[in-house]
C-alpha cells in the first residue's frame, strides 16, 4: 500500500518543520510552571460582604443628605446586616416626602415601614447585591493587577476563579513575603478629624462620644522594639479617601532623612481638601490607613495646593510599597489568603534537573527495550517516540501551555505509553506472520486490525486526562495537558509515521522476504 507517498512524506516533513519553528528558541517558548522556576500561587477570597457594607454605608450617607436637603429631619440611619438600612426619621410629619426620597434611591426596596414611628427598613435589591459583589471582585482584581504591574513581575497571571476568588500566579518572585503584603493590603486611605474635646484615655476604656470612634496609632520604639498603641478619638465621618488621589510617591525628609509618602489630590479632591483645611484650622487631621492612624498633624492654615504628606517612621521599602498601593487604589473589600503555594527558586532548579534526568533515563530504557525486542521495527518505533516528544514540546509551546513538574511526569509516562501503540501493531504483525501470511499482507493486516484497539486505548486515557484537567489545580492541570497532548501525538507518530516508514522499507518494488520485527 504505497498510496499517496509524496503527500504523506510531505505531511510528516511539514509537522517536523512546524514543530521546530514553534520550539525555537526553546528557552523562550517553553513556559515553565511555578513549581519549576519558583514563584507564588495564591488564591484570595474577596470578603464581598464587607464591600456590601461599605456600599450601604455610602448609600446611607447619600439618602441622609437627600432627606436633609428636603428639610426632613433624620435622627439616625443605621446599617443592619450587610444589606439593609434602618432609617429613623425625626418625626413622622414629612412621611410622604420621605417616601419619595426612598423611591428615588433605586438600589433599595422598602422592606418594613412604620409611619407612626417614622421608621423605615430599606433592603438592597437582589439584583443590586449581585452587582455589587461582582463589582467588588472585578475592581479588586483590577486593583491587584495594577499593584503587581507596578511592583514589576514578569508575566504574572491574575484570574477570577468562581464567584469571589482571585487566582494569582507570580513566577520568579524573589521576595514572596513582600509581594503578598503588597497584594493583600486593603489600602483604604481615609482622612478624619480628631475630636479635640474628647478624652482619648477615657475613650480607650470604652466611653466613646456619639459619632466618634477610637483608632490607634502603632509605634514601634526604635531602641527596644516594643510596640505601643496610641489611641485617637476621631469623628466617624470620613472627609476624604484615597479615591480622590491623583498620585503618590516616596520622598525623603531633608531634616530627619526619613522616607515619607507625598500624595497629590485630583482637582475635586484638592477642592475638598482645601475647603476642609480652611474650615478646621488648628484642629488635627488623622490620616488613617486600613483603620490604623499613621499620623495626625495639626492643620496650620488652608492648603490650596492639594498636596499632603503621610509620615510614620517608614523604612524606605515600606514607603515604596505604600506609594504603590496608594497609586493603584484601595481594594473595594478586604481579601484573605485561602490557598498559597510558594516554591523557592532553588527547589525549582532541583526539580528541573531531576525531571530532565527522569525523562532521559525513561527514554533510554524504553528505546533500548524496543530495539532489543523488535530490532529494526523497534528502531522505527523509537524514531516515532522521538518525534512524539518533539511534537509534544512544540504543541505545549504553541498552546502556551505551562510545563510543571507533574507535567514532566506526564511526559515520562507518555514515553512509556506512546510505544504501546507500536507494540500493539507489531505484535499483531507477528501474529499474522505466524499464521502464514506474506510480509506485506501481515503488515497491512497488522496496522488495520490493531487500529480499533489503538483508538480505544487512546480514548480512555483522554477521558481521564480531560477529567483531570477539569478538576485539577495548576500543577495537576499541567500533568493532564502533557498526557493528553502526548497521547494524541502518538496517534500521529505511532500509526501514521510508523506506517509511512514501513511502507518505504517494505512496500517498494523490491521483493521482500523477511521483516525485522
Amino acid at each position, binding site marked *: 500500500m504505497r498510496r499517496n507517498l509524496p503527500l504523506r512524506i510531505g505531511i510528516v516533513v511539514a509537522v517536523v518543520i512546524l514543530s521546530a519553528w514553534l520550539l525555537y528558541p526553546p528557552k523562550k517558548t517553553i513556559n515553565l510552571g511555578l513549581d519549576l522556576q519558583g514563584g507564588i500561587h495564591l*488564591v484570595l*477570597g474577596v470578603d464581598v460582604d464587607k464591600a456590601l457594607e461599605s456600599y450601604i454605608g455610602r448609600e446611607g450617607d447619600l439618602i441622609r443628605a437627600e432627606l436633609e436637603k428636603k428639610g426632613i429631619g433624620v435622627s439616625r440611619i443605621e446599617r443592619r446586616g450587610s444589606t439593609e438600612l434602618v432609617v429613623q426619621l425625626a418625626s413622622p410629619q414629612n412621611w410622604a416626602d420621605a417616601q419619595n426620597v426612598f423611591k428615588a434611591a433605586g438600589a433599595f426596596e422598602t422592606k418594613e415601614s412604620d409611619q407612626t414611628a417614622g421608621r423605615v427598613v430599606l433592603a438592597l435589591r437582589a439584583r443590586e447585591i449581585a452587582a455589587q459583589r461582582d463589582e467588588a471582585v472585578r475592581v479588586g482584581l483590577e486593583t491587584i493587577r495594577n499593584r503587581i504591574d507596578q511592583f514589576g513581575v514578569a508575566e504574572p497571571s491574575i484570574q477570577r476563579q468562581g464567584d469571589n476568588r482571585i487566582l494569582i500566579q507570580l513566577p520568579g518572585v524573589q521576595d*514572596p*513575603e513582600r509581594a*503578598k*503584603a503588597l497584594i493583600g493590603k486593603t489600602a483604604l486611605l481615609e482622612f478624619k478629624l480628631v475630636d479635640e474635646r474628647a478624652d482619648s484615655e477615657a475613650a480607650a476604656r470604652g466611653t466613646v462620644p456619639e459619632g466618634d470612634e477610637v483608632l490607634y496609632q502603632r509605634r514601634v520604639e526604635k531602641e527596644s522594639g516594643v510596640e505601643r498603641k496610641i489611641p485617637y478619638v476621631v469623628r466617624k465621618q470620613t472627609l476624604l479617601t484615597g479615591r480622590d488621589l491623583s498620585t503618590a510617591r516616596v520622598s525623603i525628609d531633608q531634616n530627619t532623612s526619613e522616607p515619607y509618602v507625598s500624595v497629590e489630590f485630583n482637582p475635586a479632591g484638592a477642592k475638598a481638601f482645601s475647603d476642609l483645611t480652611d474650615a478646621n484650622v488648628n484642629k488635627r487631621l488623622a490620616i488613617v490607613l486600613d483603620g490604623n492612624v499613621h499620623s495626625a498633624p495639626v492643620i496650620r492654615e488652608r492648603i490650596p495646593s492639594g498636596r499632603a504628606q503621610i509620615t510614620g517612621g517608614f523604612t524606605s521599602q515600606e514607603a515604596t510599597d505604600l506609594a504603590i498601593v496608594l497609586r493603584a487604589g484601595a481594594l473595594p473589600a478586604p481579601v*484573605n*489568603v*485561602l*490557598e*498559597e*503555594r*510558594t516554591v*523557592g527558586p*532553588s*527547589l525549582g532548579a532541583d*526539580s528541573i534537573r*531531576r*525531571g530532565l534526568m*527522569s525523562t532521559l*533515563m*525513561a527514554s533510554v*530504557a*524504553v528505546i533500548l*527495550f*524496543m530495539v*532489543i525486542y523488535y530490532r529494526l521495527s523497534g528502531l522505527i518505533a523509537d524514531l516515532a517516540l522521538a518525534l512524539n516528544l518533539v511534537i509534544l514540546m512544540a504543541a505545549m509551546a504553541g498552546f502556551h501551555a505551562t510545563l510543571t*513538574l*507533574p507535567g514532566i*511526569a506526564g511526559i*515520562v*509516562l507518555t*514515553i*512509556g*505509553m506512546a*510505544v*504501546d501503540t507500536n*507494540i*500493539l501493531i507489531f*505484535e499483531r504483525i507477528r501474529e499474522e506472520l505466524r499464521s502464514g501470511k506474506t510480509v506485506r499482507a501481515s503488515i497491512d493486516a497488522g496496522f488495520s486490525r490493531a487500529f*480499533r*484497539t489503538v483508538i*480505544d*486505548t487512546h*480514548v*480512555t*486515557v483522554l*477521558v*481521564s486526562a*480531560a*477529567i*483531570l484537567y*477539569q*478538576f*485539577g*489545580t495548576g500543577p*495537576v492541570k499541567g*500533568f493532564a495537558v502533557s*498526557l493528553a497532548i502526548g497521547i494524541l501525538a502518538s496517534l500521529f507518530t505511532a500509526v501514521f509515521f510508523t506506517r509511512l516508514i514501513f511502507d518505504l522499507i517494505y512496500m517498494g518494488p523490491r521483493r521482500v522476504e523477511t521483516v525485522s*520485527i
Partner: protein
Amino acid sequence: MLQIFVNARYDFVGKRRWFYFASLAAVAVSLISIAAHRGLNYGIDFTGGALVQVRYDKPVTVAQVRQGLDELKLGSAVIQQFGDVREYLIRLPETDLKAAEISARIQEALGKAAGARVEIRRLEFVGPQVGRDLQLQALYAVLAGMIGILIYVAIRFDFRGGVISIAALAHDVIVTLGAISITNREMSLSVLAALLTIVGYSINDTIVVFDRIRENRGRGLRRGQSVADLVNNAINQTLSRTILTSFTTFLAAVVLFLFGGEVLHDFAFALVVGVVTGTYSSVAAATLVMDWELWSSKGATRGAKQAVKAEAVATKKP
C-alpha cells in the same frame, strides 16, 4: 526473534477461582488497612493546613527542628526528613497564623534554634474551606472518570463489558489506595492524578482482551470448543501484548519513582502499583466473562454451549 508467550496455553479460566480469591483478598486487605488507619491519610490539599519545606545550610537533627517549632507553639507539627539531613518537611495543622506570617516566623525560629541559616524552599498553605471543596471534588473526579469509561466501554462493547471493566477499575483503585495506606503515604492531589491515570490506562489491556474475545467469537465456535476455550485463547493470544505494553509504562513509572525526586515520590509509587494491579486485573476480569456467560445462560434448556453459539450468530449479524 525475541518473543514471549508465543504459544501460551495457560488455563486462566480454570484457575479463575484463584484470581477471584487473590483479588478479594487484596481488596479486603486494602480496606482493612484504610479502616485501621481511620480513613486515608489526607494531605493538606484536602484537609487544609500548611506544609513547609526547609533547607538548612548545615546538617541538623529532627530534635533541633522540633525545638525551633516548639517556640512558635503552632500545635502538633509533623516533621519529616526529606532527602538528606539538611532538608525537612514540616506539616502544620490548621493554624491561626495567616499564610503571610508562617514562612517568615518559621524561618526565624528554626534558624535561631539550630544556629544555622534556613531557606524556605516550598510553602503550601491551604485554607480549610478550599480543602473541604477539594475532598469532595476528588471523589467526584474519580467517579466521573469511572463513569466516563463505563459509558465508553458500554457503547464500544456491551453493558456487560462495561460492568466488568468497572469492577476491574474499582479493584485497581482500591488496591492502589490500600498500598498508599499500608505504606503510610499521603493522599494528595498528585496521588489523585495518578489514580485517574490508572483508571484511564489500566482499562486498555482489558479492552485488548475483550476485543480479542469478540473477534474470535465472530468466527464462531469451532466443534468441541467451549466458552472457556474462547476466553482462554483470547487471553493467551493477547498475553504478550498485555505484558509488553504494561512493561514499558511500568519502566517509565519506576524511573519516576527512583529518580523523579521527593516531590513526585508518592505519585510515582501509586502509578507503579496501579500499572501492576491493572495488568493483573485485566486478565482476571476477562475470566469474569466466563462466569457471566454461565450465569446468564443458566436456565436455558440446552446448556451454555448452544446459547453462546446462538449469541455469536446474533453478534455477527449487524
